[in-house]
């Protein structure tokens, strides 16, 4: 019988992953970069294209939620609605758009515009505003968002962003990553970009001047917000402020717009009607009362 032998096979041919952590970080970074760029492209497309959705589609989207908040027989809400109607008559709203104001009886210093021309005004902010002119600026600003269809653009951006992220995280095969990214996706869903805020400021300012003949109250609104932030301490700025351009820059920008437009910077102020003030106080006291 001839001599046989089995050769010693070379090591490492089938065990080539000498530095797995380095491979992991390299690939994870590549996935993150891909995901981020895909998300940005998606978000841009989503935000840009969403504006071209017909307005009826937008109303249809918010419909089920809006039904829960029909116009109420409330003196404050009626007053706000009347004011918003007067302002929006002086703004070029898209065809068929109807602004509906909701008065929210909560401490939050905030106001926001959402899909379908719905604008919410919180008591916390309303109480802090010195007169109707300042209030009109806030409302006109929010109507400005609706006029330029920012809410649907923001929604489109957020949804496209989340979709892009879920694509990538599914590719990496990790449920955990998806849920982290999902949370940050939700955050962007609710914010307007700085450019959108500036657009709404300009639209609001023009409507304010058209309604009152002067720009009085335009900048005060933001001073009120800023001081409210300082009262609470820097750690907790009001929500309204945190998504908005830095107050000082914003005031300067408005002042520049006023001088460029050749508008009167200030004039006779209109107070908020006494009956409305009283109704606000009353609803506040009712809210404070302990539930029976």
């Amino acid at each position: 019988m001839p001599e046989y032998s089995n050769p010693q096979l070379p090591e490492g041919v089938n065990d080539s992953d000498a530095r797995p952590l380095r491979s992991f970080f390299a690939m994870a970074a590549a996935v993150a970069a891909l995901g981020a760029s895909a998300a940005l492209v998606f978000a841009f497309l989503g935000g840009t294209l969403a504006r071209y959705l017909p307005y009826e589609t937008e109303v249809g989207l918010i419909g089920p939620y809006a039904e829960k908040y029909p116009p109420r027989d409330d003196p404050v809400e009626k007053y706000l609605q009347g004011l918003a109607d007067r302002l929006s008559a002086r703004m070029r709203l898209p065809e068929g758009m109807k602004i509906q104001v909701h008065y929210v009886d909560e401490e939050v210093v905030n106001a926001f515009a959402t899909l379908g021309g719905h604008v919410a005004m919180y008591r916390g902010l309303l109480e802090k505003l010195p007169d109707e002119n300042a209030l009109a600026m806030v409302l006109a600003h929010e109507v400005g968002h609706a006029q330029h269809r920012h809410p649907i653009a923001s929604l489109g951006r957020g949804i496209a962003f989340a979709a892009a992220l879920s694509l990538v995280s599914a590719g990496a095969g990790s449920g955990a990553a998806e849920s982290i990214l999902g949370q940050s996706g939700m955050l962007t869903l609710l914010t307007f970009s700085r450019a959108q805020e500036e657009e709404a400021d300009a639209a609001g300012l023009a409507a304010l001047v058209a309604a009152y003949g002067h720009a009085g109250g335009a900048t005060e609104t933001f001073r009120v917000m800023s001081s409210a932030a300082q009262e609470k301490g820097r750690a907790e700025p009001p929500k309204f402020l945190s998504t908005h351009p830095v107050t000082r820059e914003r005031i300067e920008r408005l002042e520049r717009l006023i001088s460029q437009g050749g508008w009167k910077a200030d004039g006779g102020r209109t107070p908020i009607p006494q009956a409305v003030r009283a109704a606000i106080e009353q609803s506040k006291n009712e809210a404070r009362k302990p539930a029976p």
Partner: protein
Amino acid sequence: MDAILDFLDVIVFVGLFLTGYFAGRWNERRHYASIRRREQELAGVLVFSNRFPPHGTGRVDTRLVTGSAVISDDYFKNVLAGLYSFFGGRVRSYESLIDRARRESVLRMKAEANAAGARMIINVKFQTFAIGGRNQNKIKGVEVLAYGTALGAQARG
């Protein structure tokens, strides 16, 4: 406390990931050391894929010898394999699993032959089985079964 709950997913992920990395590496290193040592020890038992004994072999005792090994992946290898399959190319994190399973099964088969006094195994074949299947969420394992015909001592008479 709330922060812990909010990021429970992340904490669980990082925990599994690190455990997989450290425990998996440690296990693999130990296993490879053991494989190399036993391969030296059992180098005298020869393995062939030929179906028939070499020429000149007389009548010998024959017996079936088998060796099977199941090697599992770990969470770290699993995540890494997901990334490899995203970009394509060699799924490097799974290569060592197959390598270890194959070598371990051959060693067990050789050990069985060695215990029976055989110095040669012919007609050696492999069967593999993927445990965990294609399910994304299951930890995967691979089984390799090696089997062959051990040639014993020359039969007398």
